[in-house]
C-alpha cells in the first residue's frame, strides 16, 4: 500500500473524483451546452463573423478541450505530490 492509511487512500480518490467531475462539467457545458442545447440562444450573439453558438460548435469547444486536459495534468501532478503517490 502506497498510502499511509486507507483514510489517505480514500481522501486521494475523493479529491481525484471531484476534480474530474468539475472538469467534465465544463467539458459538457462548452460542447453539449453551448454547441448543441443552447446553440439557438447563443446564435443571437455575434462574435466577428461568427454566431456564438456556431463558434462553440465548430471552434471554441475544441480549444476548451485542450485547456481542460492540461489543467487536469497540472492539478493531478500536484495531488500526487500531496499524497506522495507520484512516480519516481
Amino acid at each position, binding site marked *: 500500500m502506497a498510502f499511509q492509511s486507507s483514510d489517505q*487512500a480514500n481522501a486521494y480518490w475523493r479529491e481525484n473524483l471531484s476534480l474530474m467531475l468539475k472538469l467534465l462539467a465544463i467539458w459538457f457545458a462548452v460542447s453539449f451546452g453551448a454547441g*448543441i442545447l443552447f446553440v439557438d440562444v447563443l446564435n443571437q450573439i455575434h462574435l466577428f463573423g461568427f454566431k456564438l453558438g456556431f463558434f462553440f460548435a465548430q471552434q471554441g469547444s475544441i*480549444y476548451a478541450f485542450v485547456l481542460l486536459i492540461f489543467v487536469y*495534468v497540472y492539478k493531478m501532478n500536484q495531488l500526487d505530490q500531496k499524497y506522495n503517490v507520484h*512516480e519516481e
Partner: protein
Amino acid sequence: MDLKMMTYLMVGLTFVLYTAIAIWARAGSTKEFYVAGGGVSPMANGMATAADWMSAASFISMAGLISFMGYDGSVYLMGWTGGYVLLALCLAPYLRKFGKFTVPDFIGDRYYSQTARTVAVVCAILISFTYVAGQMRGVGVVFSRFLEVPIDIGVIIGMAVVFFYAVLGGMKGITYTQVAQYVVLIFAYLVPAIFISLMITGNPIPQLGFGSTIEGTDTYLLDKLDGLSQELGFALYTDGTKSMADVFCITAALMVGTAGLPHVIVRFFTVPRVRDARTSAGWALIFIMILYTTAPSIGAFARYNMINTINGPDQQGTLVSETPQWISNWQKTGLIKHEDKNGDGKMFYSGDARNEMTIDRDIMVLANPEIAKLPNWVIALVAAGAIAAALSTAAGLLLVISTAISHDLLKRNLMPNISDKSELRWARGAAAGAIMVAGYLGINPPGFVAEVVAFAFGLAAASFFPAIVMGIFNKKMNKEGAIAGMLAGVIFTVGYILYFKGIFITPLAPNKPENWLFGISPEGIGTVGAVINVLVALTVSKFTKEVPQEVQDLVEQIRFPKGAGEATHH
C-alpha cells in the same frame, strides 16, 4: 511538370521517407518491440497518436461533409476531439497503471473471465474492421483521382499498398514513422487552407478567415453562405437540418466511442509513466486541434468556391462548354455527374428541383486546391497527405486486428501452447485477411467515409467505454454484469444499424427520421447502446456473485500512479 507526374513524385518521396525512418528506428529498438514509448517523449508520442488517430475520414472526408452539412458537421468536430478529454480523465492513467497491452487483456483480467476476454476480442475485431473499411474507401478515392482510374481499381491499388506497408513492412507501428506522417499530413492540410483563406478573406490564418469578411466586400463569409444557401434552397449553413436530439446523440457516440477505440487506447499503455499517459493525451489533442479547427474553415471556403464556380458569380449557371477544369477532372472518376435536366446547356447546383449536379462529398478536400486553381505541387501534396493519413491509421488498425486474433484469441484462449513464430504467422495472415474484407467493404461502401467510420465509434461506445470505466470506477462491477452489459450494448447497436443500413443484408426499414427511435439516426445510436450497456451491467451485477477480493485490490492499485512498472508482456 504535369499533375500526374508531380503526384507520383510527391507520394514517392514521402514513401521513401517513411521507409527510411522505419529502417533507422527499427535497428535500435528490436528490444522495445512492445514498449514503443520507452525513449519517446510525451510530445512525440502525442504526435504519433495524432497521426494514428487522424484517418482518411478526418483528412479527406470530414471537411467535405462539413462543407455539405454546415452546422450539422459540428458533430464530427466536437465528437472526435471531446473524446480525448474522457480518455485523459477517465481511462489513460488507470490503464497505464494496469500495465498490459491490449484492451481485451484489461477486460479479461479485471473481470476475471475468459468469456469477458472473448467478448472483448470480438468487439475489438468488429470495431477495427468497420473502421478500416472507411480507410480503404478513402485511399480508393485518392488513387482513383490521381491515377485516373475508376474508384474500384483505386481501392484495389490501395489494398496492395497497405498490404506491403503494414503486413510486410511497418507492422510494428513505429512511433517515429507516424511522427513523420503527422508532419506530412498537417503540412498538406494547412498549405491549401492558408492559400484559400488568403484568396477569399485576405487573412492567412484559416481559423480567423473563417470569421472574416469576404475580400473586397463588407459581407462576412458565413453570412454570405447563409444567403447563398437560402437562395439555392439549402438549409442555412450555420443552422443545419438534423434534430437537436440526433446532433446530441451523434456527438456523444463519437466522443465516447473515441475513448473506447482499441487502437487509440493501446497507445497509452506503452508510455513510460502514468503522468506521461495524461500528458500524451493533451499533446495528442493539441496536434489534432490544428487540423480540426482548420477543417470547418476549409469546409466553408470550399462551399463558397464550389457554388461560385458551378453556378457562376451571378448564380445563373455555367455553360457546359466552359466547364471548369476541376469538374471535368472529377467527372472522369464518376464522382461528379451532371445531367442537363432543363436542356439549357448550363450546369446548375442547388438544393431544390433546379439541381443538375451529383457531387460525392468525399472529394471536397482533394478538389479544393483545384477549385481554387492552386499550383500543381499543392494538389500533389494533398494527395500525399491523404495517403499518409490513411496509411498511418490503417497500420494501427491492422495491428489491433492481428493482435486480437493471434494474441488475445489464439494465445490467451484457444491455443495457449502456440510458439512465437506461429503466433507471428497468424498475425500476418489475420492482417492479410482483414485487408481483403476491408477492400470488399471499400468497394461496396455502406455510406460515405466519415459515416462508415462513425459506425465503428457507435460500436466502441456501446461496448468498451462503459466496461472499462465501470471496471475502474466501480469496484463492485462483476464479470456477469460486464459481459451482459457489453453484449446488450453491442447487439442493440449492431441490430439498429443493420435494421436501417443493412450492410450485408437488405435494410428492413427505410433510413428516415420518421422511423428512428426517438429521432436518433444509426450514427448516434451508440449513445443509447452505451446507456443500455451501463443499465444492464448495473442490474445484472446486483443479482449475481460479488467481485473476488483480489480483483477489488487490483482496482485499488490502479487508482494511483506510484509503483507503475514497465508495461509487461505475458
